[in-house]
């Protein structure tokens, strides 16, 4: 085992911040390449005219998922040392719904709004002002929602855990579902775009 490097003490916190900046550049670069600095492309996902959000997101998830699985399988990486947010089912469902509303109303999520603002989009900049305001509102009302925030705690739990299936099998099934999903998404785009017209960048 030699990864995660940081957890094995290969470098300290200050180098970690430099790495954070470099990784962020990569993240922002590919978000912009995907077209995610543009709210019309992102919103098109929810009108079935351009399903890039689904395709990019699940390609990224499957790529990283396969990489993690392979690196842990050959004994290079200790997955137990990777930070995972604990599951709190109910607040995550409600939070996810509110976030979904915000996604189609505002046209971005936090990461994509940063890319949008950096490429000159005024709606992305205003969205960021809204995001900061919303975070402040949540912070101020936190004492009132604190009990709900920690409701239904399940700890660090994964899909293989809950289904009692082998990790590798779930990885394989998700990759398979993604490929099927991509084919389905392309078919939907062709059908709907023929009716409503495709999004132009």
């Amino acid at each position, binding site marked *: 085992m030699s990864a995660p490097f940081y957890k094995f003490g290969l470098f300290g916190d200050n180098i970690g911040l430099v790495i954070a900046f470099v990784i*962020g550049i990569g993240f922002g670069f590919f978000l912009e390449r995907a077209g995610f600095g543009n709210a019309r492309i992102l919103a098109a996902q929810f009108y079935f005219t351009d399903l890039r959000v689904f395709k990019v997101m699940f390609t990224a998830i499957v790529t990283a998922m396969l990489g993690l699985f392979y690196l842990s399988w050959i004994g290079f990486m200790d997955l137990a040392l990777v930070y995972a947010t604990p599951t709190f089912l109910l607040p995550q469902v409600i939070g996810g719904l509110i976030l979904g509303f915000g996604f189609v109303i505002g046209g971005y999520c936090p*990461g994509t709004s940063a890319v949008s603002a950096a490429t000159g989009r005024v709606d992305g900049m205003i969205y*960021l002002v809204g995001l900061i305001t919303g975070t402040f509102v949540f912070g101020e009302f936190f004492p009132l929602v604190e009990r709900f925030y920690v409701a239904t705690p399940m700890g660090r739990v994964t899909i293989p855990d809950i289904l009692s299936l082998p990790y590798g099998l779930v990885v394989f099934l998700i990759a398979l579902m993604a490929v099927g999903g991509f084919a389905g998404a392309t078919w939907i785009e062709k059908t709907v775009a023929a009716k409503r017209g495709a999004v132009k960048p």
Partner: protein
Amino acid sequence: MHAATDPLAIVDHEGKERPAGKIQPYWNPYLAGIGLGLVLLASFVIMGRGLGASGAFSSLVATGVNAINPAHARANSFYVDYLGDGTSNPLMDWLVFEVIGVFAGGFISGALAGRLKATTEKGPHISPRGRLGYAFFGGALMGIGAKLARGCTSGQALTGGAMLNLGSWTFMLAVFAGAYAMAYFVRRQWQ
């Protein structure tokens, strides 16, 4: 017969001409997705953590509240989570630096592809002002939702998704459900 050349045209390294400021198309989604996935994987391997975005803005808000009213911030466990024990600057934070990188990376990619443009992205049937109102309101909802869910599309959906985190996959389904349910009511903004 050769057509009149555009005096502002840029000649690329292959000797082909393209008009100045020509906007390149976005990448193939699978290619961009693989790139994004490899960045995420690199973050896992190097740092032992995934990507994030909303957390950086929480650090910013907590720092702001603490600067204006430290007693108020210290009494609130949400702010305290981001402020730490006061021995270190809460902005010297991994996610804060990562998000500064996201701004830089987005700018670099946009500049290289000729996509830097001061504009407001919207559908044809809404005024720019109206669109900005929606952008503000949507951003605010996103801020509240992301905090309640302990992360956004980066920290939960991408990162937790790749780790097969139960809460993250449940969250992802809820995000798509919420967005599809709301889409009809804001269609004027986009179509």
